[in-house]
C-alpha cells in the first residue's frame, strides 16, 4: 500500500530544530561514518529521507532516532551541511511529543513562552504551598524537628508525590512508545520470550551508556570525554533522586554533617556542577558540532538546573552555619526550581533518560525478531507465498 507523502511535514519539523534536512541529497556519508548504523538500522540517511517525504506514520514507529547519541561526526562529514546529527536530535524531540499523551510536550516545543509561563506557574504554586505549610505549621527560625518550617517528613511526602506524578506520566508515555514501536511498527512476529531474554539491555544501557563511548572510539579519541561527562551527570541525577526520595530525613538532620549520606550528596553535586559547566561552556563556545544549535528548551533546562544546584549548596551551607532563616528561604527557592524541573522531564528532551534505554531494549528485540523472521522465510519460502 502506497503511503502518501506530506511535503508540509518538513515545515513542522523546523520548529523541533531540523532546519537543514531539506539540503540532504542522500549521499550516505553520514551513515558510513556513524558507528551505530548498520544493515537493520539505517540512519541518519534513511531517517532524513523519510522526514523529507513526510512519512509521519512511518517515522513514528522508528527507533533509529534513539540509537543516535549525537556525537556529531555525521554533521562534520556532511558535504551539504544538512546537519544529520541535529536532524536526529529534532526527531527525538518530535518523538517525545508524539509519545506524550497530554500534548504538553508539543506546546512546549512550539512556543517557548508557553513553557516559561508553565514553569513560573508551577514554581509559584510550589512556593505558595510550601510557604502556606511553613507559616501555618512551623516557624521560619527552625530548620528541622519539632516546629520546623519545612519538616523532613513533610518534604519526604512532598517529594514522593512529585515522584509519583512523574512516574505516572512516564509510564503512560513509555506504554505509548511501546505500542507505536513494537506493535504498529512491526510487520513480523515478535515472540514474547524475547522481552525476557533481552531484558538485561535495559539496566545495562541505562547505567553504562556503552554505545555512547563507541562514538568516541570511532572518532579515535583515547579519553571518551563527552561520554564520561554524560555518565557523570546521569549518575549525579540518579544519586540525587535516590537521596531525596529515600534519605531526605537523614539529609536534613543537622547541623553536624552525616558523612554516610552527605558524601553521596557532595559527589553528586560535583558531578552535576562539573557536567553542567562543561555543557554550558560547550553551548557558548560551540566547539562541538552538537552544540552549534541550541533549542530554547535546552537553555531553560540548564538555567533551572543551575539554580537548583546553587540553592541546594547554599541552603546546606546556611543550615550548617546556623543561618536558619536563610536556609529555609533558599530551601523554598530550591524546591521551587526543582519541582518544575522534574515535572518538565517527561515532556522534553530529558525524557531520553527513560526512552533511550527502552529504545535500546526494543531495538535488540526487534533485531532478533527480524533475523528469526528472515531465517524462517528462507527456510519455508513457499509457505510465505
Amino acid at each position, binding site marked *: *500500500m502506497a*503511503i502518501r507523502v506530506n511535503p*508540509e511535514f518538513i515545515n513542522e519539523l523546523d520548529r523541533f530544530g531540523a532546519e537543514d534536512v*531539506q539540503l540532504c541529497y*542522500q549521499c550516505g556519508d553520514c551513515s558510513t561514518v556513524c558507528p551505530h548504523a548498520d544493515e537493520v538500522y539505517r540512519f541518519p540517511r534513511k531517517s532524513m529521507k523519510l522526514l523529507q*517525504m513526510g512519512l509521519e506514520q512511518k517515522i513514528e514507529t522508528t527507533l533509529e532516532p534513539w540509537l543516535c547519541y549525537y556525537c556529531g561526526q555525521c554533521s562534520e562529514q556532511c558535504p551539504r551541511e544538512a546537519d544529520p546529527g541535529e536532524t536526529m536530535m529534532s526527531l527525538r524531540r518530535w518523538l517525545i511529543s508524539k509519545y506524550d499523551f497530554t500534548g504538553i510536550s508539543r506546546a512546549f516545543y512550539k512556543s517557548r513562552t508557553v513553557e516559561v509561563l508553565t514553569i513560573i506557574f508551577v514554581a509559584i504554586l510550589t512556593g505558595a504551598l510550601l510557604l502556606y505549610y511553613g507559616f501555618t505549621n512551623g516557624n521560619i527560625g527552625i530548620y528541622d524537628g519539632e516546629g520546623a518550617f519545612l519538616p523532613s517528613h513533610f518534604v519526604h511526602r512532598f517529594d514522593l508525590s512529585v515522584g509519583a506524578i512523574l512516574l505516572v506520566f512516564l509510564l503512560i508515555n513509555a506504554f505509548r512508545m511501546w505500542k507505536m514501536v513494537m506493535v504498529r511498527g512491526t510487520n513480523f512476529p515478535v515472540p514474547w520470550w524475547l522481552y525476557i531474554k533481552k531484558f538485561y539491555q535495559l539496566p545495562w544501557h541505562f547505567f553504562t551508556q556503552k554505545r555512547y563511548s563507541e562514538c568516541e572510539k570511532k572518532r579515535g579519541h583515547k579519553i571518551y570525554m563527552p561520554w564520561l561527562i554524560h555518565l557523570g551527570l546521569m549518575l549525579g541525577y540518579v544519586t540525587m533522586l535516590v537521596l531525596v526520595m529515600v534519605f531526605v530525613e537523614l539529609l536534613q538532620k543537622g547541623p553536624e554533617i552525616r558523612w554516610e549520606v552527605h558524601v553521596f550528596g557532595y559527589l553528586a553535586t560535583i558531578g552535576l556542577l562539573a557536567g553542567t559547566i562543561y555543557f554550558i561552556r560547550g553551548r557558548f563556545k560551540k566547539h562541538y558540532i552538537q552544540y552549534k544549535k541550541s533549542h530554547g528548551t535546552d537553555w531553560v533546562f540548564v538555567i533551572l538546573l543551575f539554580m537548583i544546584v546553587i540553592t541546594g549548596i547554599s541552603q546546606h551551607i546556611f543550615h550548617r552555619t546556623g543561618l536558619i532563616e536563610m536556609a529555609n528561604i533558599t530551601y523554598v527557592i530550591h524546591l521551587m526550581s526543582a519541582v518544575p524541573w522534574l515535572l518538565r522531564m517527561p515532556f522534553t528532551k530529558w525524557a531520553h533518560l527513560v526512552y533511550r534505554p527502552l529504545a535500546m531494549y526494543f531495538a535488540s528485540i526487534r533485531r532478533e525478531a527480524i533475523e528469526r523472521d528472515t531465517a524462517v522465510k528462507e527456510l519455508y519460502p513457499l509457505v510465505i507465498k
Partner: protein
Amino acid sequence: MENLRIGVYICMCGTNIAKIVDVEAVAKFASEVPEVVLAKSYKYMCSNPGQEMIIQDIKENNLNRIVVAACSPNMHERTFRSALRIAGLNQYLLEMANIREQCSWVHSDPVEATEKAKALVNAAISRVKLHEELESVSARMCPNVLVIGGGIAGMTAALELADAGNTVYLVEKENHLGGNLARVDLTAPYLYSARDLLTERITRINNNKNIKVFLSSKVTSLTGYIGNFRAVIQNLVSIQEGKTRDTEVEIGNVIVCTGYKEFDASRIVHYGYGKLPNVITSFEFEKMLRAGRIETKEGKTPKYVAIIHCVGSRSQEFHSYCSRVCCMTALKYAHEIKSAIPDCYVSDIYIDMHAFGKGHEDFYRSSSQAKTLFLMYEKGDRPVIHKAGPKDDCGMLIEVNEKLSGETIEIPADLVILMVGMEAREDAYEVARIVNISQDKEGWFIESHPKLEPVATTTDGVFIAGTCVAPKDIPDTVAQARAAAARILARIAKEKIEIDALYSEVNPNLCSGCRLCNLLCPYSAIEFLEDKKQSHIISALCKGCGVCVAACPSSAIKGRHFTDQQILAQVEGLLAEKL
C-alpha cells in the same frame, strides 16, 4: 634507376618497445639488408634529438629513403615527414613500421616479438624502395559560408563569420529565427531570459549586410568540394504555392546546426500524456511561463506540481543517452513555480541528478534549500500517474517506488510536467545525405573525432555544431558554433586549401567509363565526365581510401602512395623467408 640509400631508425619508445623487442638485434638485422646505408636505435625517435639525428644523417650520408620503426603512423607520421622536409627530402619518401601497437604492446615473448619486428621493418624497407616523390596540390578557398539552421548555434556562427567580413547564407526552415530556444522562458542556472539572448542576435543579424537570411527555406543540394561548393536553397513557401524559387550560391564551407526535436511523450503510455489533461510536456510548461500564468486546464492555480525526469532519455526502450539539459531545466521550473506560487509544493521525480556544469551544483543546492521534494525512481520502474479520488485535495496521485527509502509512496499533483528529452530531427537523414555526413544509430551527426575534432566531419569543409551532434546545453552549443566558425576563418585566412597528395587517379587511357567506382565512392569524390565518357576523381574530395582502386575492373585507378607494386613489395618483405 636512382641509387637507393636507405636509413633505418628503430625507436625504443622509452621501454615501451625495448622491454619486449630486442631493438639492437632489429637494427643489426636492418643494417644487413641490401641498400640500407645505416640502421640505428634510439630512446625516443620523436624527440627533438631523435629528429635531429635523422636530419643530420640524411645530409651527411645522402640518404634518400627513410624507415622509422616506432609507434603507429597515426601518432607520429607527421613528425617524421616534417623532419624529411627540413632535411630537403620529399616527405613521402618515408615509411613507418609500427612495432609498438602492433608488436611490443601485444606480445609477451621477446624472441618472437623481435622476429616480428624484423619482419615489419623488412616490409617497410621493401615498400619504401618503391616510394615516389609526391606533391600536394592546392585549391582556391571561397570565403562565403553556408549555415544551415537559424537557432542559437547557427546565428552565433553566422555572426562570427560575418563580423570577420565574410558573406554568410543563413538558411532556416521556419519563418522566424531562434530555433528551439525561442520556445524557452528563462535559462538555467543563472536565469537569463532566453528572449534577451535571442533578440540581441536576431537584431544584429538583421542589421548585418554580410548575412543573407533565407527564412522558410531549405538546402536541397550541395555539390563540389572544400573551398568550392555550390548549394541550392529552396524557398518552401513558393513550393506550396506551386512555384519554385531556388537560389544557387557559391560557398567554401558549410556549418550544419539543425538542432533537435523533443521526444514525443505519448510514446510512454502510462504517463497518460494526451489523455490526462494536466500532464504536460516541458515545452508546454515553458509556454505557460512565457505567458506568465501557471494553471491547470481547469484554470486553477496548482497546489502540487510534480516534475518527472528522463522522459524518453536514459532508457533502453527509447534513448539510452542523457539529454543533459532536463535536470537543470527541472530545477529552473521548481524555482519559477516557487517564485510565482509560494505555497505550491514541487516534487522532483528523477533517476539521477546530473548537475555537471558551471553553477549547476549551486543551483541544485538552492533548489533543495527551497524545499523541493526530490524523489528517486529506479530506471526500469517508472512512476505511474493515477487520477485522484474525490476525497483527495489534488487532481492526480503519482505512485513511485522511491529508491532511496525503499518505500512505495504516492505523490499528490495538480500538474505533472514531463521533462521530454532531445532526439535527432526526423529530417536529419535528409540533411546528412545532402551534405554527405554520417549519423550514429540514434540519428545524431558524427564528428570526425569525438575528442579532438568535435565540430569537423569526415567531409572536408562541412562542419557540425550544437544539438544536431548530440544533446547539449546553450554554453556548449555556442562554444561549438564559435569553434566551427574559427576553423573556417582560419582556412579563409589562408585563401588556399592544401590537399594531401594521397588521392587516387584515373588513368584515362584505361578507363572504360563503366561508372562502378562512381557508386562506390564513400566521399562522392568521383565525377563522370559526360563529354569524355570517363570517370574523374576530384582530388580535393578524395581521401585515398582505395575502394575504387580495388573495384576498377580495368585496373585504371591508381592509389597514390598505395600502388599495387608498393603493397605487394610490402607483403613480400613481410613474408620473406630468411630474415
